[in-house]
């Protein structure tokens, strides 16, 4: 059956009514007041490791093999692009035993250009000392995040390589409450050990760290009398670097952070949004697309070539 076609007069009436409704809808699209809409935003402090081990080329962007640092910068950029306007972003660099906050939280859309510019300056030449005490740096980042307004979640990007290495039991302990500041540890780097490039003050690579240039035992052991004993039991591999999964997992548990191994920006945003720290931000929303869309739908229904459709269906049967 081809459906009941409406008669001629009904059609006139329907057309007229639909047209009047379209007029009303377009007027609504134009003059309906803006509404407040709540969206979930996450304020984030990105901390990027700028120690030399981050110059190891074992991360991938697409098909290209890049340094861990390049990957980190691209990752932060992608994450910023995914954040809805109104979210705030802060940036920090980590080397030595602390995180240095470079920019306090600012709105990501209006300041995107400046944030990107600072992001690409987070490179080894900025480093003020050549050491890589990941745990301590993580703790300082957490402490400083508490001083910020709004208090951000932390995204700490590192390969987890501690230099000098940690003592089995005398490693730095976290003084705060785990999970008080929420955050994510992002692990970067592959599982195979690689030589670590050595950079000079201008950021040029001037060779690789030699086996005899780095500490292979923790500082505590290094200054004890029985150093020789300690050395005897140690594999001398601290001049090589890979992503330290176990260490980062342990750190994550210590401070109550999730640990993700080279995730996509999408995965990061999902993890962050799942935290309680996501804050709702009220945005001004113009609902015109709803009304204009309805008006358009109405018009299309009016002008669809029903006759053509009918005759096509008839031909089939």
């Amino acid at each position, binding site marked *: 059956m081809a459906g009941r076609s409406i008669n001629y007069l009904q059609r006139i009436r329907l057309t007229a009514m639909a*047209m009047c409704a379209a007029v009303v809808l377009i007027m609504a699209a134009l003059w309906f007041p803006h509404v407040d809409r709540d969206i979930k935003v996450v304020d984030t402090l990105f901390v990027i490791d700028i120690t030399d081990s981050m110059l190891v080329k074992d991360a991938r962007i697409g098909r290209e093999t890049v340094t861990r640092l390049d990957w980190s910068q691209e990752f932060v950029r992608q994450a910023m692009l995914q954040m809805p306007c109104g979210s705030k972003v802060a940036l920090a660099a980590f080397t*030595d035993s602390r995180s240095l906050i470079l920019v306090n939280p600012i709105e990501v859309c209006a300041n995107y250009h400046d944030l990107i510019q600072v992001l690409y300056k987070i490179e080894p030449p900025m480093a003020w000392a050549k050491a890589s005490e990941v745990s301590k740096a993580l703790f*300082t980042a957490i402490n400083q995040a508490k001083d910020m307004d709004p208090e951000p979640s932390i995204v700490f990007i590192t390969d987890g390589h501690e230099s000098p290495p940690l003592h089995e039991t005398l490693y730095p302990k976290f003084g705060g409450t785990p999970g008080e500041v929420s955050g994510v540890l992002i692990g970067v780097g592959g599982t195979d050990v690689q030589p670590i490039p050595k950079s000079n003050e201008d950021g040029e690579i001037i060779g690789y760290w030699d086996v005899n240039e780095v500490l292979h035992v923790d500082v505590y052991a290094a200054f004890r009398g029985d150093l020789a004993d300690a050395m005897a039991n140690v594999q001398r591999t601290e001049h090589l670097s890979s992503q330290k999964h176990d260490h980062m997992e342990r750190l994550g548990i210590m401070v109550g952070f999730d640990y993700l191994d080279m995730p996509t920006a999408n995965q990061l945003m999902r993890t962050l949004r799942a935290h309680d720290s996501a804050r709702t931000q009220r945005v001004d929303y*113009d609902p015109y697309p709803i009304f204009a869309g309805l008006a*358009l739908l109405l018009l299309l229904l009016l002008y669809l070539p029903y006759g053509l459709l009918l005759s096509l269906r008839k031909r089939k049967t």
Partner: protein
Amino acid sequence: MSDIVWELPALLWALPLALLPFVYVDVRKSVVWLKLTPVDPLSRILTPLLKLAASLLIALLVMALAGPHIPEQLSQRSGEGAEIIILVDRSRSMDDIFAAAPRNTLSRVPIGTQSKRQVSRDYLIEFIQRRPDDRFGYVFFSNHSTELLSLTYHKDAVMATVDAGALGRGISQTNIVEALLKAADMFEHEIYRGARRVLLISDGGQLLTEQEESFIRQRYQALQLGIIWIYLPAMRGMTLEPSDQDNFLWVDMPERKLHEFFKTLSIPYQAFEAGSLSDFADAIDAIDQQHYETLMVDEVQPRKSLADRFLLFALMLAGLLAAIQAYSWWGAYLPRGHDVDVRKLSGICYCEYLVFDS
């Protein structure tokens, strides 16, 4: 209008829907004998015009939904201000208490508790807020210097960077020479827009070698830079200019040497000794009148939505079409017993069907 940007350009693929009104419309109206219908030349003209209007209406709505807008734009206006590179001392000495009482005095005035780093932040924020038209860059230095922000108009970004500078502890020693040269480098590739200043905020000076002095002199003169120095004394009463009440230990302080050197540069130079913030505010206002030149200021015109224009045009067309349809309706539903005007019945709106029915 040439630089319209669409938020959802993919929606524009729906534009061919605007052809629908031109597609053959069959409404199955039987007329006994076509010759009975009067010929209405006006309808012959109006029908295609109305189809065109309906078509345009659909197109306009599709385009309005695609989110037409003019993106953020930079425009220039002339302002009164300067381009300023903020040069912040991030060394460890900045962690010390600001303006502590000299050791040999009894502390009648309570000793401050703010570190020099925190004080420097207050001064910088005050400075930035008082200079609406200035463009700022940011360099922090310790034993070597890092350019963090290139010159930007975004006050939020500058303030957030200055705020971050107040957090945490200092990082290392001081190397003012490298910092001064770094700041000069940042102007190197900029077009000259107006007054250029390097705003140095630090707690100490440094003895310069003759070679360093001549290098700085040459660079700063060539690039037409001026220096503003906000000096944060570690001890109360310490001044850059010698005075009669000087502690004799202060006579040969490196900061005094640096101050003397800056004075000989024959470039605009202004030194402030941080004391009270309100005095400083007055002093900033004072330099306004003296030094600053006209400067080209980039202003960001915020993004402007054009959807309303499309909708307004659509509203006019829809209003027209609705009026005509309503007129047809009125014509078709005249009360019974009334003389039906055939011309009105076959009027502009239904003529299209009659023509196609043949």
